[in-house]
C-alpha cells in the first residue's frame, strides 16, 4: 500500500545526495483495558500511523519522522533527513554509518491462535472485572488492578538498495496486582511474574494467564506479607523464580551486551558496559552452567519478527557460551566496527523513532534440574519471586534487586514466607556463583513490555526466557539493614 509513497521518499532522499536511504511506514493499533478497584479506569484504543526516513550522507545518518502522508510531506521529510545527515557530517570526527549489506523482499506474520479483535469487548471487560474482584480477599487489599494490553503493528520497510519487507506483528499481555496496606506497611503482589504475562500472539496469551484462577492467591499473599517476618540480612544461597531470572538476565546481561553501549553510544544516559570488546572470547561472565542466546525467532518472544528495523533477517546467536563472553546484540554499524555481521537486534519504538539496538529475545538455556530439586542442596537459603525494585550501575556491575515475596529454604524445604527480600552483588561474580539452572519444564518466555533506552527515550518490548536458578553465597537483605532506614 505504501510502496509508491516509499519510492517517492527514497527518490527524494537520493536526489538530495543520500548515498543510502530507507523509509519505514508503520501503523500501530494499541488497546488498553484496566480495572482498578472495581472501576474501569482505562478503556482505550489508540492508533498511530506515520513514517520515518533515514538518509546516509558522508557516513552520517539523519532521521526524520512525520505523520502527514501527503506527497509534499514525504518530500519535505526526506529533505529534512538529508539536512540532518549533512549537519551531522559537518561536525563528525569519523565516519560511522554504512548501508546494510543485504536487501530482502519478504513478508512476515506473527503466528496467532485467536485474534483478540474477535473477542467481544464486553467479554474482555467482564474477565478483568471478575479477576480484579477476586483479588479483594480482605479489607486490607486497598488496591486491586487487572489489565489487558494488545499491540497490533503493520510495518513496511523500503530501502534504496531494494529491500521490501512487510510485517504484521501482534503482541498481547495481561496481569493482576493487589496492594495490601496495614500496620504502617504496603505490600504488593503481581501475577504473572512482576509485570504480567506478555508474549507475541493473540488472545491465547490472555487465556493462558488464568487470571481469575490465580487472583485470590495473589490477594492472600499481599495480605500475608503485611505480617510476614522481614527477610534477614546476611550471606545465603538463593533460588530465584523464573520471572526474577528474567529481570536478572535483562539487567545484567541483556543491557551490557548491547554493542552500542559497549561502544559508548549510550554513555551519557543508559551507560556503557563492562563487556568490553577486548574481552570477547576471554571474559568469564558466569559459571559453565550459564549459556545465554539472543534469538529473534523464539516462539512467543515479544521481539520475534522476520526482520529488524534495518532489514536484517532474524536469527539466533550466542552471547554467553558456557560462561564465556562470545557475542553481542548488534546493529549493522556496530557489528561492522568489530568485524562481524548484524544479528538483527535493531528496533524502533514506532514510526516516529530511529531504530537502535535492543536486547530483543534473550534466553538463558535451561539446565537439567527439575524446579523442586533446586532446593534439595540448600541447607539455609532463600527463594525469591517477582521483582519489585531493580537498580544497577551504569556499567552493569553493581546491582541490587528486590522481590515482592520470599520464602526461607531450610534443609532443602521451602519454609516461612518473608517480606521485603533483596539481594545484591557484582554481575560476573554473581553469575559465576550459579550452580544450577532449572530444566525445560520450568523454562518460560517472560516478556518485558516497557524497556527504556535511548535519547529521545524509546520503549522496547523484549523477552527473557528462563527457568528458576540457584546461586551460592549471595548478599541478602541489603537496603533493610538498620542503617538504611
Amino acid at each position, binding site marked *: 500500500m505504501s510502496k509508491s509513497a516509499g519510492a517517492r521518499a527514497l527518490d527524494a532522499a537520493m536526489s538530495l545526495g543520500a548515498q543510502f536511504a530507507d523509509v519505514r511506514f508503520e501503523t500501530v493499533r494499541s488497546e488498553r483495558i484496566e480495572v482498578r478497584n472495581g472501576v474501569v479506569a482505562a478503556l482505550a484504543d489508540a492508533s498511530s500511523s506515520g513514517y520515518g526516513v533515514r538518509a546516509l550522507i558522508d557516513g552520517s545518518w539523519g532521521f526524520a519522522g512525520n505523520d502527514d502522508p501527503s506527497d509534499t510531506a514525504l518530500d519535505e521529510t526526506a529533505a529534512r533527513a538529508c539536512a540532518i545527515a549533512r549537519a551531522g557530517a559537518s561536525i563528525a570526527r569519523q565516519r560511522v554509518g554504512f548501508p546494510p549489506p543485504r536487501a530482502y523482499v519478504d513478508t512476515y506474520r506473527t503466528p496467532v491462535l485467536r485474534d483478540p479483535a474477535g473477542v467481544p469487548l464486553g467479554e474482555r471487560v467482564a474477565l478483568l472485572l471478575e479477576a480484579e474482584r477476586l483479588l479483594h480477599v480482605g479489607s486490607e487489599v486497598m488496591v486491586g488492578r487487572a489489565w489487558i494490553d494488545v499491540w497490533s503493528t503493520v510495518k513496511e520497510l523500503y530501502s534504496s538498495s531494494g529491500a521490501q519487507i512487510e510485517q504484521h506483528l501482534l503482541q498481547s499481555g495481561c496481569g493482576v496486582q493487589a496492594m495490601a496496606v496495614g500496620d504502617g506497611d504496603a505490600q504488593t503482589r503481581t501475577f504473572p511474574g512482576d509485570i504480567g504475562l506478555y508474549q507475541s500472539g493473540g488472545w491465547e496469551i490472555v487465556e493462558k494467564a488464568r487470571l481469575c484462577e490465580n487472583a485470590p492467591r495473589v490477594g492472600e499473599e499481599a495480605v500475608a506479607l503485611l505480617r510476614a517476618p522481614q527477610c534477614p540480612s546476611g550471606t545465603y544461597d538463593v533460588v530465584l523464580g523464573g520471572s526474577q531470572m528474567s529481570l536478572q538476565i535483562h539487567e545484567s546481561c541483556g543491557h551490557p551486551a548491547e554493542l552500542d553501549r559497549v561502544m559508548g553510544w549510550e554513555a551519557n544516559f543508559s551507560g556503557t558496559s563492562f563487556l568490553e570488546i577486548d574481552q570477547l572470547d576471554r571474559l568469564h561472565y558466569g559459571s559453565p552452567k550459564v549459556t545465554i542466546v539472543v534469538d529473534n525467532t523464539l516462539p512467543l518472544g515479544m521481539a520475534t519478527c522476520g526482520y529488524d528495523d534495518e532489514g536484517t533477517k532474524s536469527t539466533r546467536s550466542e552471547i554467553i557460551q558456557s560462561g564465556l563472553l562470545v557475542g553481542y546484540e548488534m546493529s549493522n554499524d556496530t557489528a561492522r566496527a568489530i568485524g562481524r555481521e548484524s544479528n538483527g537486534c535493531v528496533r524502533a519504538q514506532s514510526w516516529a523513532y530511529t531504530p537502535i539496538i535492543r536486547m530483543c529475545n534473550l534466553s538463558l538455556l535451561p539446565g537439567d534440574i527439575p524446579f523442586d530439586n533446586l532446593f534439595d542442596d540448600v541447607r539455609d537459603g532463600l527463594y525469591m519471586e517477582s521483582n519489585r525494585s531493580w537498580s544497577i550501575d551504569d556499567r552493569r556491575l553493581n546491582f541490587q534487586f528486590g522481590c515482592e515475596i520470599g520464602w526461607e529454604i531450610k534443609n532443602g524445604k521451602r519454609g516461612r514466607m518473608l517480606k521485603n527480600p533483596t539481594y545484591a552483588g557484582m554481575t560476573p561474580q554473581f553469575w559465576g556463583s550459579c550452580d544450577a539452572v532449572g530444566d525445560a519444564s520450568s523454562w518460560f518466555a517472560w516478556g518485558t513490555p516497557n524497556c527504556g533506552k535511548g535519547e529521545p527515550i524509546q520503549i522496547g518490548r523484549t523477552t527473557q526466557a528462563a527457568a528458576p536458578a540457584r546461586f551460592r553465597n549471595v548478599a541478602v537483605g541489603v537496603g*533493610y539493614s538498620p542503617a538504611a532506614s
Partner: protein
Amino acid sequence: MNDLERERLARELLERSTADETEVLVAFSDAALTRFTHEVSNQNVATRGVEVSVRAIVDRRTGVVRGNAFDMLSLQQLVDRAAALARLAPEDPLLPRLPAGKPAAPSPTAFVASTADATPQRRAELCEPLFSAAEGGGCWCAGYVSTSSFGITIANTSGALSSFDGTDAAVNVKMVGRDSSGWGEAHATDVGTVDAAAVARRAVEKATLGTAPRSVEPGAWSVILEPAAFGEMLAYLTSHFSAQSYEEGSSFFSDGLGRSYFGDNVTIRDDWSHCLAPGIPFDYEGYPTQRLALVENGVVRNVVTDSYYAKRLHRENTGHALPAPNSYGPQPLHVVVAPGTRSLAELIASTERGLLVTRFWYIRTVDLKKAIITGMTRDGTFLIEDGRVTSGVRNLRFNQSILEALRSCELSREQARTASYSYSLVVPAVKIDGFNFTSATEF
C-alpha cells in the same frame, strides 16, 4: 499546528460527538535531537506529529480513543469509537462532570520562536564547543543537543478551552577521561540562552578532578547533592503527593496530612510559573493548575487532585490531572524546592569530611511507604576534606529514606532546573548528614 488550528480541530470533534460529555485533547510536537558520542553524531533525529485524544462519557461510563488521522471519516470514527467504548464500560457512580474553568495566562517566555525554528545546523553548532572541550581536555564526550516545540489544546463540552505553546532546548554532556567522567546539563525555553561551552567546561573540570579516583568505605557520610542528584532523588517522592496515593494508603503521609515530616527549612511547591521552568498553567482536563505548597516549612500541606479525586475526597480540584486514562492519578508536574541561604561553595566549605555527588543513576524504590530508595552515584563523585574538594572517588550505592534525608538538611541558595525524560524539577543543592552508602563499584 498552531493554537487556532488545534482549537478549530477540537471544536470540530466536539460537534461531531454524540456522547453526553466529550473532552478533546490535541497535541502537536516537533522535536529534534542531535545525539553524539566520540565526537560523532550517532543519532540525529527530528519528528513532527499531531495526536488527538477523545474522552467520551455516556451515562457515567468512559471511553478514550487516540488517533492521528485527520480526514473527515477518521475524525468521525474517532468520536464514534470513543462513545461506543463508553457504552460498553460499567457505570462509575462517582464520575464527575467534566470541569470548566479559565486558566491563567502562560508565561510569555514559555515559547521562543528561535527555538522552534532551530535547524540541524544550529544544533550542530551547539555540539562543536562540546567536542572542542572534550578534545582540549583529553576526554571524549557523549550527550545531546535538543530543540523542540509543542502545543496542546484541551476543550470539552462543559466549556473548557485551553491552549498552550512551549519550547525547550537542552544540552546534556558526559565527558569521559581515562578513569573518570564528568557531566553537565542546561535547559531553557530559549536556545539562545543555552551556554554549551560553559556546560562543557564544567563537565571537563569534573572529569579532570576525578582522575585516579580513590576508593572510600561505604557507610554513613555527609553528602552534598548537586541539583541533578537531588532532583533525581526527589522525583521518587513527588508521587506521594497524589490524592490517589494518599487515599490508597501508599503515601508516606496517608495518615498524616498536616504533620511535620521534614526539617523546617524544607518547602516544596508545585509552581508552573517558575522562571526557570515555565510550564502549562492548566491540567490535562483543561482546568487551571493551582500553584500550591506541598510541603511548607517541613509540614505536608496539600495533596494534588483532579476532578475525579476532588469529588471522591471532597477536596478542591487543584488542577493536576494527567491525560486520560492513566493509572497514576493526579500528579504534581512542576515541583520547585525553595532555596536556602548559603551558597554551594559555602556548603562545601562547611564540610569537614564528606562526599560531593554530581548525579545519581538508576534510582528505584525499595520500600514505598518508608520512601526508601536505592541508586548509584555517577559521573563525578568527589571527596571533601577540610572544606575542600580533594579528589574523585569510585562510585557508590546508597540505600536511603528520603524522609530521613530531608529531616535534617541544608539547602543551597542557588536553584537550577534539572530534567530527564520523566521529570522536570527546580531544586537547589542539598547537604545531608548520615547519608547511607551500602556498597561500592569498581569505577
